[in-house]
């Protein structure tokens, strides 16, 4: 018989997850707080109170699961992207490029002005470009959203994630590995990795619908087939050190545009998606330690504000010309707030390449914590103000 402490030791993770889930349900019902924000907060508390006593092998397993969960969300995001829209309304693309670029410049400038070295400031600025698809999609689905803010936030998020992943790899390539002082060469190798990831995703996007049609799955739900394919794809990208983010996103986009078969996959991948999202948001927050958060708190807070300000300003500036009111522009900018999961997973992947960025990116922990808890809340409020949430309205 194991004694009590060893029993607790073994059950710590599942118990903590269960508590986080229960807290998520209760607080969502009482206060309307997005569930994922509660999972994040729970993960942060657990990570700081207990995870330090747990063997690291557990954490690696959860990391993988978190990546799979994130892959599912990216696939779903890709599946809800219409590339043709970028052509019929070029202002969406203009908004996206301006928004990403301005965020990078502003965050970089403020970080350097506050005394950060230029390499970590660049990495931080690259991460700040992105809107985490995980935080965004979970809130959109939780609230049953539909409308222009919803639609634009999804498209802008997928674009700025690709841009952020590219910029981040580029800066890592130049600055950290010093493989070559040549910018063009670093850009090229970064492009190759992203291109290969996209190619893998695209191949899946062609093959899976074909296979589904072969086995005459047209009338049935294709959720499981896509979930398994995403798992496989994310693992392949993981093993080959490609970008799982881009691979899963491309998979979704290509599957959607080659609409050969596709009976509707369930939003969120149903219960499977729900389960993995508890894991994902909980786990990601356990990687943040209180000391790191405290150390970078003020700069982190400042950068979060700068980032939000730039995104809101750009989205508002292009609102009318792109076909919506300025008010909806402001709300679109606010809806782009979440970023934690994407940033943390990206830097975790980089850690696997042998670079630990948390040491150099002091304010990142604070930013991630703030945005993991506050980000979904801001997105949710923005969508409620835009009258695009269904569930809240018809209580």
């Amino acid at each position, binding site marked *: 018989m194991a004694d009590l402490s060893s029993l607790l030791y073994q059950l710590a993770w599942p118990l903590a997850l269960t508590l986080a889930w229960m807290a998520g349900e209760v607080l969502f019902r009482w206060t309307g707080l997005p569930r994922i924000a509660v999972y994040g907060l729970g993960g942060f508390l657990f990570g700081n109170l207990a995870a330090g006593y747990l063997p690291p092998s557990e954490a690696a397993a959860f990391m993988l699961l978190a990546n799979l969960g994130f892959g599912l969300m990216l696939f779903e995001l890709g*599946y*809800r*992207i*219409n590339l*043709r*829209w970028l052509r*019929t*309304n070029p202002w969406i693309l203009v908004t996206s490029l301006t928004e990403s670029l301005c965020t990078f410049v502003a965050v970089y400038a403020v970080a350097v002005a506050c005394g950060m070295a230029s390499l970590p400031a660049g990495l931080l600025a690259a991460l700040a470009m992105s809107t985490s698809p995980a935080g965004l999609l979970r809130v959109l689905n939780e609230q*049953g959203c*539909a*409308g*222009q803010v919803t*639609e634009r936030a*999804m*498209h802008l998020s997928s674009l700025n994630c690709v841009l952020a992943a590219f910029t981040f790899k580029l800066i890592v390539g130049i600055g950290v590995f010093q493989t070559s002082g040549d910018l063009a060469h670093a850009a090229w190798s970064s492009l190759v990795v992203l291109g290969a990831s996209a190619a893998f995703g695209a191949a899946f996007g062609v093959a899976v619908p074909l296979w589904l*049609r072969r086995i005459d799955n*047209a009338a049935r739900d294709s959720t499981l087939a896509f979930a398994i394919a995403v798992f496989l794809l994310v693992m392949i990208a993981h093993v080959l050190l490609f970008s799982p983010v881009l691979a899963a996103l491309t998979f979704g986009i290509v599957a*959607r545009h080659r*609409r*050969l*078969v*596709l*009976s*509707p996959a369930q939003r969120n991948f149903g219960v499977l998606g729900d389960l993995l999202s508890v894991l994902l948001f909980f786990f990601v927050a356990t990687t943040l330690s209180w000391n790191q958060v405290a150390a970078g708190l003020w700069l982190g807070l400042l950068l979060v504000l700068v980032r939000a300000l730039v995104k809101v300003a750009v989205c508002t500036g292009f609102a009318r010309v*792109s*076909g*919506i*009111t300025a008010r*909806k522009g402001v709300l679109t900018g606010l809806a782009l707030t979440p970023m934690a999961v994407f940033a943390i997973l990206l830097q975790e992947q980089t850690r696997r390449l042998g670079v630990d960025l948390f040491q150099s990116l002091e304010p990142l922990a604070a930013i991630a914590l703030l945005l993991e808890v506050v980000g979904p809340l801001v997105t949710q409020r923005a969508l409620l103000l835009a*009258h*695009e949430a*269904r569930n809240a*309205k*018809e209580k």
Partner: protein
Amino acid sequence: VPLEPFATSRSLTMGVELELQLVSLSDFDLVSASPDMLELLGRAPFPGNVTPEITQSMIEINSSVHTSHAELLAELNEIRDCLLRAGDRLNVGVCGGGTHPFQQWSQRKIFSKPRFREVSALYGYLAKQFTVFGQHVHIGCSSGDEALFLLHSLNRYIPHFIALSASSPFLQGSDTLFNSARLNSVFAFPLSGRAPFLLEWEAFERDYFARMESTGIVRSMKDFYWDLRPKPEYGTIELRVCDTPLTVERVAALACYLQALCRHLLERREASPREDDYLVYNYNRFQACRFGLDGTIVHPQSHETLSLREDILTTVRHLEPHAQALGSEAALEHIYRETHSGSDAQFLRNAFERAGSAEGIVDAALARFRAKGEA
């Protein structure tokens, strides 16, 4: 409130109302886009008129009053282009079809206007499964008596319009085997069906409307969901059985078919309508909904069994001189061709065969609404 007097309008003028689907171009599901669409459309003058409907994934447009096919079609084309331009900027597709093939009714959001909220509270799930899309055609009448005469004389032709416009074979993701499943949703409402058999406006007002109003069930003509109802404030009768067709060409053709039919009926060469005509009414209506052009109907006066397709072809032949007089030969030609090439319901079933998915149906409907000058 007593019924308002019947406004006189010029005989045989016509106008069209269309309920159109708003579909996300990302996932082809219905999308609550009408507030954003209305905001964008409000920035420039709109040909005709546009109004919000009960659910946010629907947009209703109406034409001006017309007498000729060419004018009506030209305006509908303009309206269509205007909607498509706005939709393209918002990633919203606009299309016809009486139902959306895979939307789940529980997902729909009710437009936040007090009247809509009342309707939703009263009818519960009926209000939401009423996310169906129809075409209404108004025909101008010179008096209330003329309106009631036309309304009841048209009873035997109602199945024609159901079969010719049918475009709602799919509901909630599966084939209903009906050609117009939409009308089954309409039929669930307590005040649907047909108007009472009264041929004089005074009698209608005194013996029916005033008495219904005193029961407290209705307040205005709006509360009746009849297949064909008089609209005293416009001085028209309003045909409400048509599904929204997939093209504006068919919209205009159906309106002009009705116009020519009314011109024919006003010559009063056919036997006058009788109350007993309605004995076969619901049966014929069902045949048209279920089997479309392949249905068989029973003639209300001779009790002959007729193929619906044959009956339409015979009618088209009879209407030729009227179409010539009204300048709507092209419309009759369109109807004639449809009886051979098949209805929109058939088109949607073919699209499902080809694509193998419900999204493929919506994709085909979107492309068809967009296509210019197609029959």
